């Protein structure tokens, strides 16, 4: 084991502190009052570089030195200082020469030693790092010397080496992103907390990585690019082509949006149908997303770039699935089979409804209904059903053509096809919706009447001006009529309530089926597939934090750690990058839903944002 001799130097240095290799003595005695622990973040790519100067950033709050590159001999100190000033200008990060790096073959290269130490005089930095690695045995040793060190004698500065993969740290983004103060002109501080400072430093020093040791520049550097600059021809071509393609598509999309907002569509019947069909909502949503992706502005932040990529991948997958569905539908005459099956199914549903109404008109579940009202309501609904069946039979010859043309819409995407399916279900069950509305209106009327007459019964009335219940003195004839009406309404309540209950349940069933389809559409719309793919294939890009591993440790050598990126768990990736969906979520909670059902108010589960209340 090598032992370093104590050195006493005259001149500018008053004293130097012992290096780590002689720490073994104090370790055996037990933990002694050590000085500051200096953490040196060293890139793994520089571990095999030739000797030179260490360039990087010193973070005094954590007493850590982030080494970014190694400057090789020969160099002119002025040019090195110029390069550092340039990087400072570009990235607002204060770099400096931190120390020397010595990668030597054997003991015989002692002449390099004093030369390296002399460099400390030219680039003065506090503390001055001296890292050294032997080529044959691969053993490391480090020293950190201070000019104006702590005044207590015998106090040593320990150096801890933390290796990091520079390329991965450069490309990764921390979640949550460290909130940095606004950069001001000339302000070189990037005050990210803790280890985020390392990520921040590497990210801001991009200007330093532009030239490396194989370029013919004034200063030869070794960093992650020295391992081989990665590039892909396809990626470069795509970047060049993306400009004009984006411009073209942006013009096309703006034309379509302009056509959409033209006056024809503002007319009453068209705009009403437009707002009710969910296909139109989905198409509008997709149009917005495509406009975002193909906009000619560059993405400002990494989050925006991810969003654009997610939208693009989502649209592509959608279209691919839609085309697969289209080819399945149009093969083997499936459309014909579907059209043939549709009318009998509609007939079957109508027959089932007829049976239900006949059952209600009798004594349903043993309950005794009011005969007259029962017959009136039952006959009215039966007639309505009969009209509906005639209408469906009228349409039956055209159904196959309609389905064929509507099926073509699947080429726009699976979500569009699913929205169309949801709309077709809504149209086919329109009679159930009508029955529900009639039943609900009747029931609502009855409940309103009952509550108002109940107030009359107790001698109170509703004050519209003050929006509260006030007492009121009624005349005798008012009380008489009111009480009569109250009893009539009360005894007719069970019949109406039963019809209302049955049709509400049917309506809720249809709404549940439509809801499932909408859920599926939402899933395809909002799942961030690009982010999930990135997490699967390049986990270091999305970082939740870091993790450390202690490397092989020998007594007397400095402690070496390997810092790796801890990737974000899949759940958090989805949560952070999910795309905003159509916004067709039910706007009321379960409590308000039950309240509305009890009072007979109509429920509209697919209230779009910005719709007027009906």
């Amino acid at each position: 084991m090598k032992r370093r001799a104590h050195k006493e130097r005259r001149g500018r240095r008053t004293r130097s502190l012992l290096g780590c290799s002689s720490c073994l003595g104090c370790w055996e005695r037990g933990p002694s009052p050590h000085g500051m622990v200096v953490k040196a973040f060293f890139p793994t790519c520089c571990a095999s570089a030739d000797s030179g100067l260490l360039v990087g950033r010193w973070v005094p709050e954590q007493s850590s030195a982030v080494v970014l590159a190694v400057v090789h001999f020969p160099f002119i100190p002025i040019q090195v200082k110029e390069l550092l000033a340039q990087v400072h200008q570009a990235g607002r990060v204060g770099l400096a020469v931190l120390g020397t790096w010595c990668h030597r073959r054997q003991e015989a290269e002692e002449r390099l030693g004093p030369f390296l130490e002399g460099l400390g005089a030219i680039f003065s930095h506090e503390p001055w790092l001296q890292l050294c690695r032997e080529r044959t045995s691969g053993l490391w040793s480090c020293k950190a010397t201070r000019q104006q060190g702590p005044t207590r004698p015998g106090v040593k500065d320990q150096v801890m080496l933390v290796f990091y993969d520079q390329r991965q740290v450069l490309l990764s983004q921390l979640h949550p992103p460290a909130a940095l103060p606004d950069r001001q002109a000339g302000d070189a501080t990037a005050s990210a907390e803790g280890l985020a400072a390392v990520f921040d430093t590497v990210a801001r020093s991009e200007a330093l990585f532009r030239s490396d040791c194989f370029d013919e520049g004034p200063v030869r550097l070794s960093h992650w690019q020295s391992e081989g600059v990665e590039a892909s021809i396809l990626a470069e071509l795509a970047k060049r082509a993306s400009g004009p393609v984006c411009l073209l598509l942006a013009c096309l999309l703006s034309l379509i949006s302009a056509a959409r907002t033209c006056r024809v569509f503002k007319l009453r019947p068209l705009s009403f149908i437009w707002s009710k069909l969910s296909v139109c909502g989905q198409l509008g949503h997709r149009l917005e997303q495509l406009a975002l992706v193909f906009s000619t502005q560059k993405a400002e932040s990494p989050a925006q770039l991810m969003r654009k990529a997610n939208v693009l991948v989502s649209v592509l997958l959608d279209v691919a699935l839609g085309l697969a569905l289209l080819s399945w539908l149009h093969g083997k005459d499936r459309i014909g089979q579907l059209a043939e099956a549709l009318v009998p199914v509609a007939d079957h549903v109508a027959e089932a409804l007829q049976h239900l109404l006949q059952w209600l008109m009798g004594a349903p579940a043993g309950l005794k209904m009011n005969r007259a009202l029962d017959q009136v309501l039952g006959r009215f609904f039966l007639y309505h059903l009969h009209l509906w069946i005639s209408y469906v039979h009228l349409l039956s010859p055209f159904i196959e053509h309609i389905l064929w043309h509507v099926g073509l819409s699947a080429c726009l995407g699976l979500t569009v096809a699913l929205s169309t399916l949801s709309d077709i279900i809504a149209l086919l069950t329109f009679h159930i919706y009508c029955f529900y509305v009639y039943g609900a209106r009747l029931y609502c009327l009855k409940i309103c009447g009952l509550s108002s007459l109940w107030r009359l019964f107790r001698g109170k009335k509703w004050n519209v001006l003050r929006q509260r219940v006030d007492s009121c003195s009624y005349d005798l004839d008012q009380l008489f009529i009111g009480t009569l009406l109250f009893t009539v309404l009360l005894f007719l309540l069970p019949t109406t309530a039963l019809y209302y209950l049955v049709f509400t349940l049917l309506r809720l069933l249809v709404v549940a089926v439509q809801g499932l389809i909408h859920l599926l559409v939402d899933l395809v719309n909002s799942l961030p597939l690009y982010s999930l793919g990135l997490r699967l294939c390049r986990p270091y890009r999305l970082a939740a934090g870091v993790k450390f591993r202690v490397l092989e440790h020998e007594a007397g050598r400095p402690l070496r750690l390997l810092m790796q990126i801890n990737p974000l768990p899949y759940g958090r990736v989805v949560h952070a990058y999910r795309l905003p969906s159509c916004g067709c979520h039910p706007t009321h909670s379960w409590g308000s839903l039950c309240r509305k059902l009890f009072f007979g108010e109509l429920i509209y589960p697919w209230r779009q944002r910005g719709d007027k209340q009906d």
Partner: protein
Amino acid sequence: MEDEQSFSDICGGRLALQRRYYSPSCREFCLSCPRLSLRSLTAVTCTVWLAAYGLFTLCENSMILSAAIFITLLGLLGYLHFVKIDQETLLIIDSLGIQMTSSYASGKESTTFIEMGKVKDVVINEAIYMQKVIYYLCILLKDPVEPHGISQVVPVFQSTKPRLDCLIEVYRSCQEILAHQKAASASP
């Protein structure tokens, strides 16, 4: 410097504590649970398959048997990958932070790293767990808003649940390093 000792967990099972002292400022504690025993695995598989065979004789549908095999395989894979923890490690590095790693039986590792700037203290707490009162080691995190407050309590060795004697060993070592850290941060 490595050192191994055996302790027991709160249910009486055997645990092995491995201590590695890399340097005066870096220590690692590794607690290993007993592995998945062949006996329990055989017992569960036999129960599931007997139940499936019973259902098969009732329903005469061979899908039940294939479904039972499928469920057993998936269940075993899921258990090994998501539930069964083989080892829990605590790595404490002065001036960097504290790292907790759980290694699952399928080889998956899940790591959490807490920076030293956020750590207030490491303490042993008591808790009422079902019908027992147990001790557990936890890390107290500082509150960024209030200097003397605690924002979070992070328990350590949650799956292995060692007893007090093991916890005291780990606690003593952690306190030595934290004392270092406090002395270093107190001096300018």
